[in-house]
């Protein structure tokens, strides 16, 4: 097997004048060195992406961000390949670069000369061929008459917020092994979307789907990083050019240049009565999408549905922009943009409540969307336990009891936040349940278990329908030769979408077994599955194959962003925090964190709790310590030494995670997804608690001791010199 090592751009935006790989090719032990020129010989249009075909397999003509792959070295020894990278020479002609999402709106630096929508999403077609813009997608929603409401308002509040670039950082970095076969190509890859990988690689090669086989083992974490095409296209091209098996496994440092979470700037403005009723809201969101769209336009649109928050507001305007910049590409990270939005609207809720001298809980109670009410898109809230989640949080935090704000140099504060999310639709899931003649069975599904426990949940669903023991079921891992299509493992969709498909496949198998029993004038209660097969086939032989598919109802929003079917189900998450701030340093510790979600009826309550807890702690990292630092597009902290993720000593002193009692009428066994819900409320709950403790309002993430200290000094009329 050959190992591939990638030569990456050192420029944020530049024309490639020349690439000299001759010295690298001459190194002993180097099997091959490829550039875009070689790729084009194999794949005439080597551009990929789920929303836009904007990402080249290797840089073609110009580079769009630091870290973009420009050339690749193949060798049997990884050290030989790595060393050869140093002798590749590239001559660049720098172009003006744009890094900030606001500047990108009107920048003279244009990341892509022409927009190239992939055609996968019909509502992006109008952008085809658009020139001289960095706006990959703009989503607009208008409900009622916000301008009129602002004119009539008792109070108007307007705030700006920012979120920083962070990344998924699964401990297992991206890895693909591509093996040319006599029928085509087999990929062993760490992917959350094997079906997409097969379709996209087949499209690039001009092959039918069945010539590409994609196999996915257990993943070492994903969180949205390992979606769509990451290392797969380059590994495939290398394997086909070399006609050898090729392994492309990235380092931790390289992960910082593959996919990130959108940095955002958010503006939010509300009209409020003196009693605290919100009558109008305007939201503008600018998403820093980096150099390639990835799934950013979808993040922009889907999260746009709920940007005004879980509140009953008659007049709403939302304008959301997906922007290209010369930073590494941004995609979906555990929440599909929702944590950024909740950060803004729940900070905003508390800021208004404080200004109006209304208790933050009362402010939320007064405005929260109740069951059956339309939210900003016009879609009704159904099986959305916003009120139960909010009330249970208040109860667990003893919100109505007096709170000790501390004394001396330590001050205490508490804060809460609640958010919601529309699930991803319309997306398809298929499943196959095979019953063997001894009564054992296997489930074939392309859902990827990356630690969220989907194998267990899906097996439980099959066992429940077939009334069989968990011990006799095997879950077949994604292998596109045998596991049928699934859109992807993302957006907390598997329990609901794949859960439905699996349930239907199991029911289909059960119905066939029941029909077999009827042939012998029996019911399934009177005969074992093994006996039934023996009667039918005279020996241990035969199979029953059940198939199931699911695609939820969905109606695309109209030009005003209005639709009656924005989502198959609502996800809800809330967090309550108590903390202590050291007023001499700004350092603080979280003494209590309570995370509550609405997951419908949990299929596996223990796994659900771990998902809530894991999501909340991860979001704590995005709130307190994680931030990618850039210098002219170059990441200056691309290592675990300089980019701090939560460790075992960073936990809140006390943590409670709970799914409220709820039921999703449209879900399999009343269930809905949970992977992201625990992230929603964390950041604003902490910021609200800091404000409650020391009167400092932070509007930029991450929330650092330094920022609090500076804020306290300003508050005390003694700002630090540079403030």
């Amino acid at each position, binding site marked *: 097997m050959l190992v591939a090592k990638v030569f990456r751009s050192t420029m944020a935006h530049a024309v490639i004048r020349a690439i000299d790989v001759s010295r690298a090719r001459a190194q002993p032990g180097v099997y091959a060195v490829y550039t875009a020129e070689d790729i084009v010989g194999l794949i005439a249009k080597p551009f990929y992406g789920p929303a836009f075909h904007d990402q080249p397999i290797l840089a073609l003509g110009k580079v769009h961000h630091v870290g973009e792959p420009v050339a690749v070295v193949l060798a049997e020894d990884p050290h030989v390949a790595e060393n050869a990278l140093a002798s590749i020479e590239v001559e660049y002609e720098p172009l003006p670069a744009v890094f900030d999402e606001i500047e990108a709106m009107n920048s003279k630096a244009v990341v892509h000369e022409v927009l190239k929508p992939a055609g996968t999403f019909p509502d992006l077609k109008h952008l085809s061929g658009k020139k001289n813009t960095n706006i990959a997608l703009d989503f607009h929603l208008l409900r009622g008459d916000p301008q009129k409401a602002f004119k009539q308002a008792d109070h108007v509040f307007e705030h700006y917020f920012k979120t920083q670039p962070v990344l998924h950082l699964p401990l297992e970095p991206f890895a693909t092994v591509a093996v040319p076969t006599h029928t085509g190509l087999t990929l062993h890859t760490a992917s959350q979307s094997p079906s997409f990988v097969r379709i996209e690689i087949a499209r690039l090669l001009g092959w039918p789907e069945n010539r590409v086989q994609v196999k996915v083992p257990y993943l*070492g974490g994903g969180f949205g990083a390992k979606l769509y095409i990451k290392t797969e296209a380059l590994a495939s091209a290398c394997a086909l050019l070399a006609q050898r098996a090729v392994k492309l496994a990235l380092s931790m440092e390289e992960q910082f240049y593959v996919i990130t979470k959108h940095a955002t700037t958010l503006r939010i403005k509300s009209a409020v009565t003196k009693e605290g009723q919100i009558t109008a809201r305007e939201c503008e969101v600018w998403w820093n999408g980096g150099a390639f769209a990835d799934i950013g336009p979808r993040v922009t649109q889907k999260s746009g549905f709920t940007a005004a928050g879980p509140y009953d507001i008659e007049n709403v305007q939302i304008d959301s922009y997906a922007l290209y910049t010369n930073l590494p590409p941004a995609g979906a990270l555990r929440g599909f943009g929702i944590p950024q939005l909740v950060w803004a609207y729940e900070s905003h809720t508390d800021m208004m409540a404080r200004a109006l001298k209304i208790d933050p809980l009362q402010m939320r109670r007064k405005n929260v969307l109740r069951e059956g009410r339309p939210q900003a898109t016009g879609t009704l809230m159904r099986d959305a336990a916003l009120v139960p989640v909010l009330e249970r949080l208040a109860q667990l935090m003893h919100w109505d009891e007096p709170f000790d704000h501390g004394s001396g140099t330590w001050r205490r504060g508490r804060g809460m936040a609640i958010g919601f999310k529309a699930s991803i639709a319309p997306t398809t899931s298929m499943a196959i349940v095979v019953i063997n003649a001894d009564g054992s069975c296997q489930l074939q599904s392309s859902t990827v278990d990356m630690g969220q426990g989907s194998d267990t949940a899906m097996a439980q669903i099959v066992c429940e329908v077939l009334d069989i023991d968990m011990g006799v079921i095997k879950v077949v891992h994604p292998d596109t030769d045998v596991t049928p299509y699934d859109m992807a493992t993302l957006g907390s969709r598997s329990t609901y979408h794949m859960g439905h498909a699996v349930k239907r496949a199991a029911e289909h198998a059960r119905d066939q077994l029941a029909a077999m029993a009827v042939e012998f004038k029996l019911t399934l209660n009177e005969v074992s599955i093994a006996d039934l097969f023996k009667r039918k086939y005279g020996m241990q032989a035969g199979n029953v194959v059940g198939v199931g598919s699911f695609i939820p109802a969905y109606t695309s929003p109209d030009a005003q962003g209005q639709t009656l079917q924005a989502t198959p189900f609502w996800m809800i998450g809330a967090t309550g925090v108590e903390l202590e701030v050291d007023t001499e340093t700004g350092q603080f510790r979280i003494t209590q964190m309570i995370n509550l979600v609405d997951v419908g009826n949990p299929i596996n309550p*223990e796994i659900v709790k771990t998902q809530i807890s894991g999501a909340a702690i991860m979001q704590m990292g995005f709130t307190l310590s994680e931030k990618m630092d850039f210098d002219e597009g170059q990441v200056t902290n691309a290592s675990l030494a300089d980019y701090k993720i*939560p460790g075992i000593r960073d936990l809140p002193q006390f943590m409670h995670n709970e799914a409220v009692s709820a039921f999703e009428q449209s879900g399999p066994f009343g269930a809905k997804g949970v992977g992201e819900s625990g992230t929603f409320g964390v950041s604003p709950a902490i910021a609200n608690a800091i404000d409650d403790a020391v009167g400092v309002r932070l509007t930029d993430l991450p929330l650092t001791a330094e920022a609090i200290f500076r804020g306290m000094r300003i508050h005390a009329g003694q700002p630090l010199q540079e403030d």
Partner: protein
Amino acid sequence: MSQTERTIEIFLNDKPIRVTVGHHQTLIEVLQAQGLTGARESCAQGLCGCCTLKVNETLVSGCLFLAVLADGQRVQTIEANEQALDEVQQAFIECGAFQCGYCTPGFIMMVRALLDENPDPSDEDIGHYLSGNLCRCATYPEIIKAVQRAASVRRVPS
């Protein structure tokens, strides 16, 4: 064999093996070539604990430990005694102390060593000892529970 290579003998999970390794190769690379993938390279800087191995009685980061230094030494990986789960592994399963499982071998190696040194650790002791092991799924609360459970099982004389 070139001047940059050397043949070493290591007692790998109690079996002697001879391998020719480059001077620059780390122990983790050599183990991977042996098909032992339980210890994984993640950060490659000795910061995450995913590649934790035991060389003689000392826990090391396999991504930083040069293979030639293991010559003549006992090397233990998570694959040792694969036929039966010990009380630490059992406790991790019972407490659901992992999600993706990528970091788990490193944690198990560390927890065994912790309990050898300190049979009755407090949560603070556990946090201190495991602070060099990262879990991006953030299954830390469950890991702390698992360590406490394993410790209590170990303390009961069999």
